[in-house]
């Protein structure tokens, strides 16, 4: 079912978009700017469809489901940047340029150096932004279609190359328009469904199983703890577990206070089995029916049992324990990989597709006033319930470590938090100082956050696939109106994303292995067709953003770089042909990078793309518009300094140090986010170089707008 809907989606998008682009790509004006004939309303929704990438749709919903309020902070930053786009960039960009942002920048100077520097910057930002989209495409299709990551990336790349090289900006516009419309429609449908369902602390069928939607409640049992705070054989005897034994203990300590923060136990225990086919028995492991050979069955009091090994977590926080209970043992999940490569999920060898056997996680376990369920609830009411200090929320968390003999263990457990903690900053961005944390760490964490929020605010209006959309409309007023439609659509979407995130949490729709699948899994917690549609939309989201980026890169190489490098007039047809060839080449490079960066957290890369765009492009744009003493040399220097410093700081930052396999704490640059250094540096450069080169261009007058 999911596969059919998925294929129908992709084919429909291809047909509609390629028909829209047919016959409109013969001239460079048609290929690069859709003949400036797109209606502002369509352009506005296309803005939203191109801007709302998988990072917004899948990434933010997942972050809210796993980290609460901190995911919402991304939404605010992603939207706020549009204010800069509307109020200072949109109309001048339309008035001053023809096809690319470099045109506008160079209008009053006519210097090849500006076009080359701006073209290089557009190319770099497009590629940096293209990588997470491609990685996201692979992440999405891997579980959905059951195909390897690299094939997913190749499929997306091939479809986008076909779209862009064939239909140019017109096709790109219509893919983005349909995607924007679908995103807003289905995010609204899902939000209404979430509000109607409300919050239910009792068992909810939420996860697709062999008999349709089913649920699983992780077990918890009271017990007493020893003097040192851990459990032992005697305390296990107080629980209903049959013949339990402790195999391994794993304790994690707070890095500053040294207090234990996580106690995990690997237990061996018996679970009831039933005879099935000849020589086989079945038993229920975490709610799933698993077959066992007869030789694994033990007879106890005449009944058959099998022995399994699984992981449990000890809860000792009185806020999350029933009154009078000293501690509770709470069931967790695990994936263990033995040195010989054998993989066990929850203690059982499932073979191919083992990871799909993990149970989904996330739920609300207690509501204020001891209610069991809220019933249908309003939009404010739902957020109010979830931010109440008396609401207990169980978040999906993971711990990875090695045990004896080199076996790698990942344990997935429920971490309880109070509602007021869930709906405040701090879980993803550690801006609140923790006990015993060195002051320098607190300062760096805060600087990182400020740096990210600065890059999001200043980066949006400088993203190349946003800037080229100003040329597809007929007038400056149309550019303004389409930006307003974009702000309204994107603002609405980010409010809806909040409900997708909390909906996935209260609906238990989180895959503990990834925070990118919460929105599609939320849809599946309602029904399978909705899941198929939402997954299809996620795929068109990748298509919409990547097509815009490849279009921007194609335009800048063919229009800015090639023309200036060749230094002679190029026929219009050749420009269009070159644009198509560049689209293919950039698409193929994107595919290669998407495969190479597999496994890298896509949100890092998206944040970086904003930082590079804000550093390299925005200072020159703003100064060209508002400071009459800006010179060509100032613009070129600012772009290059912004580009080199932002990319350079990323490359020597802690995240990249980790990717290189080095100790992140030893990275020369202590911040992950470069914006707070590279953006001011680029502003200072344009001021200093422009003042130093005033003689170069005494009569240059910057435009009034």
């Amino acid at each position, binding site marked *: 079912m999911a596969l059919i809907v998925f294929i129908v989606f992709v084919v429909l998008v291809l047909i509609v978009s390629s028909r829209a682009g047919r016959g409109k790509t013969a001239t460079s004006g048609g290929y690069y700017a859709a003949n400036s004939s797109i209606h502002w309303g369509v352009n506005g929704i296309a803005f939203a469809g191109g801007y709302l990438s998988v990072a917004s749709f899948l990434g933010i919903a997942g972050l809210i489901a796993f980290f609460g*309020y901190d995911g919402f902070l991304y939404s605010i930053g992603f939207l706020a940047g*549009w204010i800069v786009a509307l109020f200072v960039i949109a*109309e001048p960009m339309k008035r001053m340029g023809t096809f690319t942002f470099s045109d506008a920048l160079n209008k009053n100077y006519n210097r090849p150096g500006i076009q080359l520097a701006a073209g290089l910057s557009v190319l770099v930002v497009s590629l940096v932004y293209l990588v997470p989209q491609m990685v996201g495409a692979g992440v999405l299709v891997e579980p959905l279609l059951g195909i390897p990551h690299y094939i997913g990336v190749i499929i997306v790349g091939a479809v986008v190359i076909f779209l862009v090289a064939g239909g140019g900006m017109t096709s790109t516009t219509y893919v983005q328009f349909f995607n924007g419309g679908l995103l807003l429609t289905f995010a609204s449908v899902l939000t209404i469904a979430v509000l109607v369902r409300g919050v239910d602390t009792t068992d909810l069928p939420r996860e697709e199983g062999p008999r349709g939607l089913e649920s699983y409640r992780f077990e918890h049992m009271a017990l007493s703890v020893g003097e040192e705070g851990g459990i032992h054989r005697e305390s296990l005897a107080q629980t209903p577990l049959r013949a339990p034994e402790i195999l391994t203990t794993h304790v994690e300590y707070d890095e500053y206070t040294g207090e234990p923060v996580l106690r995990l136990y690997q237990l061996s225990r018996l679970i009831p089995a039933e005879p099935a086919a000849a020589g086989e028995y079945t038993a229920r492991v975490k709610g799933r029916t698993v077959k066992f050979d007869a030789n694994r069955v033990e007879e106890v009091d005449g009944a058959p049992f099998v022995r399994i090994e699984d992981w449990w977590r000890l809860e000792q926080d009185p806020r999350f324990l029933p009154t009078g209970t000293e501690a509770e043992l709470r069931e967790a999940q695990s994936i263990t990989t033995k040195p010989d490569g054998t993989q066990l999920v929850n203690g059982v060898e499932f073979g191919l597709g083992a990871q799909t056997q993990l149970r989904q996680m996330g739920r609300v376990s207690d509501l204020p006033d001891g209610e069991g369920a809220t019933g249908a609830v309003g939009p404010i009411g739902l957020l109010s319930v979830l931010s109440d200090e008396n609401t207990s929320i169980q978040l999906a968390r993971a711990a990875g470590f090695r045990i004896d003999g080199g076996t790698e263990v990942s344990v997935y457990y429920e971490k309880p938090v109070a509602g007021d903690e869930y709906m405040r900053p701090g879980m993803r961005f550690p801006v609140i100082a923790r006990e015993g944390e060195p002051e320098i760490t607190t300062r760096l964490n805060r600087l990182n956050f400020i740096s990210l929020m600065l890059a999001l*605010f200043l980066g949006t209006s400088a993203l190349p696939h946003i800037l080229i959309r100003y040329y597809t409309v007929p007038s400056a007023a149309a550019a303004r109106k389409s930006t307003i439609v974009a702000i309204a659509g994107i603002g609405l979407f980010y*409010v809806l994303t909040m409900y997708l995130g909390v909906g996935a949490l209260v609906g238990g729709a989180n895959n503990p292995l990834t925070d990118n699948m919460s929105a599609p899994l939320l849809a599946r917690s309602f029904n399978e067709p909705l899941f198929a549609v939402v997954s299809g939309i996620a795929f068109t989201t990748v298509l919409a953003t990547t097509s815009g980026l490849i279009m921007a890169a194609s335009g800048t190489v063919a229009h800015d770089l090639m023309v200036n490098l060749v230094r002679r007039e190029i026929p219009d047809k050749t420009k269009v042909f070159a644009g198509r060839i560049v689209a293919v080449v950039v698409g193929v490079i994107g595919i290669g990078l998407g495969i190479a960066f597999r496994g890298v957290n896509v949100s890092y890369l998206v944040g970086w793309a904003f930082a590079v765009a804000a550093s390299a492009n925005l200072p020159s744009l703003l100064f060209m518009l508002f400071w009459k003493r800006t010179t060509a040399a100032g613009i070129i220097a600012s772009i290059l300094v912004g580009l080199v410093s932002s990319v350079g700081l990323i490359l020597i930052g802690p995240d990249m140090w980790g990717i290189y396999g080095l100790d992140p704490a030893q990275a020369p640059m202590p911040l992950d986010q470069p914006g707070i250094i590279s953006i001011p540096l680029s502003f200072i450069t344009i001021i200093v170089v422009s003042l130093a080169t005033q003689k170069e261009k005494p009569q240059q007058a910057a435009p009034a*707008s």
Partner: protein
Amino acid sequence: MAEDRPSAFEAYERRKVRLGVRMTLLYAAVYAGFVVLNVFFPPIIQKSGLFGLNLALTYGLGLIILAVVLALLYNWLCGVPPTEREEG
């Protein structure tokens, strides 16, 4: 054409630029206030805001609504350029 009547059109453009810059600065100040509160004053951001939500949520949702309101207000204040008005 705008070039035929530079004074009226340029005055309109200048007014619009001033308006755009002022609105950007206004929003930037409100946004900066939000970031500063989140980073340096966590106890304040956790206090009650409107409609039973905490200040963090109220302020965050308020920023989204403010962006849409300012965008619509800007468009309304921009009105119609002198050339288009005269052309009817």
